[in-house]
């Protein structure tokens, strides 16, 4: 079964973009609509290639992490507004209010 799958993958790779091109296409597909033939060839490649599937799901995971509403709450905590700036902003806010 393993050898059969490898042979099938070889055939699929004859008709689809290689992995290097796939990383570019996977990225692009996150930002815009791809043409249908490109989409088909990508899907075919993804079906045969676990590395590219991983690549795609990791980009998705990264987006999910960064785009989550609470993501900013977990930013590393060492940077703090200097006290003088706080005071300045407090004044500006109360003047504007």
């Amino acid at each position, binding site marked *: 079964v393993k050898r059969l799958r490898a042979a099938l993958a070889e055939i699929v*790779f004859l008709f689809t973009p*290689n*992995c*290097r*091109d796939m*990383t*570019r296409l996977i*990225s*692009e597909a*996150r*930002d*815009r609509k791809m043409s249908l033939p490109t989409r088909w060839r990508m899907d075919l490649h993804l079906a045969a*290639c676990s*590395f*590219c599937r*991983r*690549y795609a799901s*990791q*980009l998705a*995971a*990264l*987006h999910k*992490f*960064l*785009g989550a*509403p609470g*993501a*900013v*709450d*977990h*930013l*590393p*905590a060492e*940077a*703090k*507004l*200097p006290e003088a*700036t*706080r005071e*300045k*902003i*407090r004044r*500006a*806010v*109360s003047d*504007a*209010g």
Partner: protein
Amino acid sequence: LDPSRWVDEHGDILYRFALLRVRHPETAEDLVQETLVTAVRSSGRFRGQSSARTWLVGILKHKILDHYRKIGRETPFTDLESLRDELPEKFADGYWNHDRGPADWGGRADDAVDRREFWQTLQNCLGKLPPRLADVFLLREMDDVAGPEICRTLQISESNLWVMLHRARLALRECLEIHWFGRKGAP
């Protein structure tokens, strides 16, 4: 809403976010101030469907976009030169090198306990990217600004944007895998 408490309740969070994006403390401080002043003036529009913090972060995101718009007007935002290297060692004849393809990450970044630590690694990795690549990457991924709008705002072509985003993602994924998911370079 109690604007007099905003600086103490949200100031540091807004500042860290601004600093991550513009990398310059004084600019980040100015952005926080502009954000809170704008928020006070438009507080009538706050409907309370989201938390005050989410609302303030939303305003800050607009300020950050304005900041980039100014930069884009003055200097070309496109950067296709400083990261040309698309990790050649990862591929053999265009296919993933079998020892070096993407590793299984499991679900580690989903774990709340790990989140702050993950952010630290992510921030370090972002710091290694050419600044313009990190900028467009975060506009797209954190602020969810659509490609065409990024292009209009920063005055870059769409094809250049796709290349920049691709290089940013490729390099960032690699950096995270090495420094967070624990695969130390070659096996």
